[in-house]
């Protein structure tokens, strides 16, 4: 392929001499890998949403003829495994991190492009193993996504294979983390100092450290469960001198920091969106950058708040309670900075901003209910109730999910060079927002009034609220269908978006849409911070 230095083909045109699907499956271009993740995650997301939808139907008792109690156990396990390990953990990091991290720092690609593609194959292998576990062996796992011992050791269902899938997914996550840290350290464009990086890069950097430092703990924990099931080594088995509580400690040592793997890139994307539509520089650049690192640091020390009722010492309970409340501080710093950025900005109200503001609203509810549970007295009462389910759906779906939708709306025109119908997106927002709050605020109320989570049946007094929440789930799914339908339509029939539809000033808006193969004609030299809107006005 020959082309002049001034007109590279876009990454979508450059097939590397291969045809069709192979051009995607063998490409080490970070942009193509980002799209690979996007497509595979969209597939898993629809399965996960489908299962959640059916679970809500089960709570309308008329549908219990179709779904048995054992199937229901499998459904909430699989819903959790898919949504957590296949969606929100890789989440914005692998899709937008892969696509935009090199562009935002002025690089041609990530540090290890082949390792990057390998990470996607690890991801798909883990995903396929997890899905295979549903149909092979002793049947779909029924332990819940947390795989707590001793039940995960005793159950005859196919837990080992599902756990092995999660183990492989961990590799994908760690290797991506290694790749991003090395990329940020080594490949920043000339003049792109640490405090000139767009804040998405800081968020990805903090996330990558959590991925590297926390994921191996999950890996060894899962290996121990598999070995325990295969050989009965006894480390978690009290009959052999082991301790089941050790499992919970090891599991949450990873799985709580994993929450920050999920939310930090989401916060990073929101931090990119807000200044663009406020038309002014971000308020408190360094505060946001350091709060990302603080969340990563403090967030690694709060795992015990999942175990207040597991029988830890009073002292440990108090310590973890205190640390849990402290971790809310850096998150709040971000929220205040976003709001302050909007203050006296020249706000251009576009779909990405609508979803970003929705993120802030829903994330605040999620965050504040989180602080409530950090208080020991409240925690004992709401532990293992629908309150917990409502809380983490506000954080994970209302937070990470809506940030993902906002980021997709923001960067879709850049990624594919097409603009979607803004009207249709506004239309999709209403059922999504109303349905979301009916469903998950309904769950918060159910939890406070005493409905335990993971129950197949419920007492009559909970029925009206279950019906209310289930109707909410229908609205939510309707909104999602309109949202994704609009984007799919735009992908094929949308109008050309132009290089800079939002008036953004970070590096991705200085290059064509869709971006050329090597991102830049010439590696840019950076002389200012990332959000200099005055420069544009001149």
């Amino acid at each position, binding site marked *: 392929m020959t082309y002049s230095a001034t007109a590279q083909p876009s990454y979508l045109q450059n097939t*590397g001499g291969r045809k069709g699907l192979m051009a995607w499956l063998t490409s080490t271009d970070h942009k193509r890998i980002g799209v690979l993740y996007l497509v595979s995650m969209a597939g898993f997301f629809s399965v996960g949403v489908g299962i959640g939808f059916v679970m809500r139907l089960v709570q309308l008792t008329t549908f219990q003829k179709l779904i048995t109690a054992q199937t229901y156990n499998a459904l909430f396990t699989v819903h959790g495994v898919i949504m957590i390990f296949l969606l929100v953990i890789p989440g914005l990091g692998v899709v937008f991190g892969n696509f935009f991290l090199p562009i935002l720092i002025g690089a041609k690609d990530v540090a290890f492009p082949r390792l990057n593609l390998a990470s996607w194959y690890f991801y798909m292998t883990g995903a396929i193993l997890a899905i295979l576990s549903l149909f092979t062996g002793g049947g779909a796992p029924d332990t819940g996504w947390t795989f707590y011992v001793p039940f995960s050791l005793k159950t005859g269902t196919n837990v080992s294979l599902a756990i092995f899938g999660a183990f492989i997914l961990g590799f994908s996550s760690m290797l991506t983390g290694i790749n991003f840290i090395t990329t940020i350290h080594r490949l920043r464009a000339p003049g792109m100092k640490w405090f000139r990086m767009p804040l998405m890069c800081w968020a990805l950097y903090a996330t990558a450290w959590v991925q590297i430092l926390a994921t191996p703990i999950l890996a060894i924990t899962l290996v121990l469960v598999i070995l325990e099931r295969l050989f009965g*080594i006894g*480390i978690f088995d009290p009959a052999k001198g082991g301790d089941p509580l050790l499992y919970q400690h090891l599991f949450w040592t990873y799985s709580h920091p994993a929450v920050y793997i999920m939310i930090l890139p989401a916060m990073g994307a929101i931090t990119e969106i807000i200044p663009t539509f406020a038309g002014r520089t971000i308020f408190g650049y360094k505060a946001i950058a350091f709060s990302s690192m603080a969340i990563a640091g403090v967030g690694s020390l709060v795992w015990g708040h999942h175990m207040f009722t597991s029988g830890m010492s009073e002292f440990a309970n108090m310590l973890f309670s205190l640390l849990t409340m402290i971790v809310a501080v850096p998150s709040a710093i971000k929220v205040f900075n976003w709001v302050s950025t909007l203050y006296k900005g020249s706000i251009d109200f576009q779909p990405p901003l609508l979803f970003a503001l929705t993120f802030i609203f829903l994330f605040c509810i999620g965050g504040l209910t989180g602080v409530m549970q950090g208080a020991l007295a409240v925690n004992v009462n709401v532990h293992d109730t629908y309150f917990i389910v409502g809380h983490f759906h506000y954080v994970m779906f209302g937070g990470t999910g809506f940030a993902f939708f906002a980021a997709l709306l923001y960067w879709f025109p850049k990624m594919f060079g097409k603009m979607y119908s803004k009207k249709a997106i506004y239309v999709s927002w209403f059922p999504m927002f109303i349905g979301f709050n009916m469903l998950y605020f309904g769950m918060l109320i159910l939890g406070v009034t005493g409905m335990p989570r993971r129950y197949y049946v419920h007492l009559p007094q909970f029925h009206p609220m279950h019906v209310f929440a289930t109707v909410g789930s229908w609205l939510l799914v309707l909104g999602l269908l309109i949202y994704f339908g609009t984007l799919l339509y735009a992908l094929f029939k949308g109008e050309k978006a132009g290089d800079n539809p939002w008036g953004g000033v970070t590096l991705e808006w200085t290059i064509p849409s869709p971006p050329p193969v090597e991102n830049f004609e010439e590696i840019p030299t950076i002389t200012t911070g990332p959000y200099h809107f005055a420069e544009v006005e001149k």
Partner: protein
Amino acid sequence: MSGHAHRDDVGSKLGMWLFLVTEMVFFGGLFIAYSYMRHRYPAEFHLGGAELNVTLGVINTLVLLTSSLTVVLSIVAIQRGEKSRVMGFLGMTLGLGFLFLIIKSFEWAAKFHHGLYPNAPHLATLPPGEQVFFGLYFVMTGLHALHVVAGMAVLTWILRKVAKDEVRQDRYIHLENGGLYWHLVDVIWIFLLPLFYLAA
């Protein structure tokens, strides 16, 4: 894929170090489990340690330490461009790794012979603390042995690259990174020796 042969040895080494960090945390989880259990069952860990063969453990330590030396010597040799010595030293490293595994397998076989393996009827009659001790012993030395095998596979792959001159005097980052990994395997063993063999 593209024609641009981007090369960044510092970046490659940074990536390798980060990977080693993940390996250390991986074993770190086991060391946490070990310290908790030892705190809980000090006397039983003492008895368990007495069952292990200190002589074989020390010999294996010397074997691995020597293999780390030969890896370093192979890096010195490649800096001087002495290809045959590079291959010789790498061959010695692989041989020593193999020797380590043989000695280890003799040790394991003896434990199996005495009924000291997970789920063994004899082990089940011992106090719980000793059962956990041997559970941890097999998991930790077993996972370590798997890492020895992985390290040998990596060094074999590098040996092939040396033979084909893809790793050479002006381009030996693969060998350096492979050596780093081998040292990690060595260092983990240095911790396993006192924790298990010298626990008595």
